[in-house]
């Protein structure tokens, strides 16, 4: 039922782990639905230079998490904000219909990590000012 790309990312997930000195962290999903994704990003000069994840969830949840860490690396914050859940699914050659809703959370987690980064930036500016 999964595409070869999904199985590849599920079997050999890219960028698993945490970034201890991350610039932004986002968590999406909940245990009731059975999918939780946590994403860490490192930002330098407005560009995402590193992204790592940890995910509790099914094959699709793990594969989408892995895929988004690949997609965001090197992107500016503005570019990263353009990535949608659908785009992540497309990059994986599609997901089974039932998985599109519940297990396709990676872009939402990324948005939360970017929000966290932007909030921290703003906090730092306020403190400096």
């Amino acid at each position, binding site marked *: 039922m999964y595409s070869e790309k999904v199985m590849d990312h*599920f079997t050999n997930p890219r960028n698993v782990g945490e970034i201890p000195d991350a610039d932004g962290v986002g968590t999406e999903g909940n*245990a*009731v639905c*059975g*999918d939780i994704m946590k994403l860490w990003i490192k930002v330098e000069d407005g560009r995402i230079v590193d992204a790592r994840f*940890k*995910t509790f*969830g099914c094959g699709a949840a793990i594969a989408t998490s892995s895929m988004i860490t690949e997609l965001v690396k090197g992107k500016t914050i503005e570019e990263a904000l353009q990535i949608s859940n659908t785009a992540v699914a497309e990059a994986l050659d599609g997901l089974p219909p*039932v998985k599109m809703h519940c297990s396709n959370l990676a872009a939402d987690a990324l948005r939360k990590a970017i929000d966290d980064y932007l909030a921290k930036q703003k906090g730092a500016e306020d403190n400096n000012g």
Partner: protein
Amino acid sequence: MNRIYLDHASTTPMRPEVLEAMLPFLKGEYGNPSSIYGEGREARKALDRARDRIATILGASPREIIFTSGGSEADNLAIKGAAFALRDRGNHIITSAIEHHAVYNTCRYLEKHGFRITVLPVDSYGLVDPSAVAAALTPETILVSIMHANNEIGTIQPIAEISKILKERKILFHTDAVQTVGHIPVNVQELGVDLLSLSAHKFYGPKGVGALYVRRGVRLDPLIHGGAQEHNRRAGTENVAGIVGMAEALVLAASEMDKEIERQQELRDKLITGIMESIPHTRLNGHPKKRLPGNVNVCFEFIEGESLLLNLDMQGIAASSGSACTSGSLEPSHVLLALGLPHEIAHGSLRLTLGRGTSAADIDNVLEALPGIVDRLRQMSPLYDADAFCKTH
């Protein structure tokens, strides 16, 4: 790669002897059992013999066996058939929170037709309390349906105890015995039930055939209207080959039952002990003793069932899970939730069901593969903090 099939509660491989018994009726013997000429009489003879063999093993008389297309139809016929036939007597039905969907959703359907359904809770082992059945009875109660053993967690219910209570009150009692027939002794007299469902492909018979035991004198509206087959209770030309195969499979299962129970129980307990000892943060679901000989069901905290199944499959092991992702719905198994498990733990369930082809080497292989898979998924899980657990546990 050598496959290890540990999903026998889902379906079983058909035995070669069963295929042999069926083949004549898929080839030369094409007669319709309802026809009076020679070809029909041969088919009728085969059908009668199959009915006799099945009835004998269940402790029933042949007239009390109705052939169906499987377990789901048997459950539907028992529940809807009894409910509609007894509507003049009352509208209340009692069932349990861990029934198979064939029973559970049939009861939900009847609710839309004016029946009142009481769903009894189970304890943390999945057991129904017979006194709770007694307490739920009302003058309107016409039917109670409690499964013999659960398909997910393997817990065996105190059916004989419940039937004693219901006999005094003259209330019909149905049990879904799809998981027990052919695996543990099932005798309708000892169980004291009025209706009992079974399915051939769960005991190494063909798919698409099952039966309902209906105690003599029980009124039942048919689901399928048409010809006079099955004493006017189930119209349609009989699945002769399937029915012959089912009888053969049941006779074979009965002949090796004692030996298989002992063998599978030993392997089951070895598997349970091995998992519990090698993988921390694991719980056994179901009753430790009152459980099917071939059933193992555990929850691994911090991981999700589908990822686990995909990993096991890649290592050649076929198993199942009660996680939402494997059921096609958003909810994890209603059985695991009824045990009182929180959602996140129910999502991490693994069911391994053994069968007559399962060897000690298979169990060793699973015990070798499983800890690594669970650990790998836990290392990837944001819910799992290995360091914190090392400090506190």
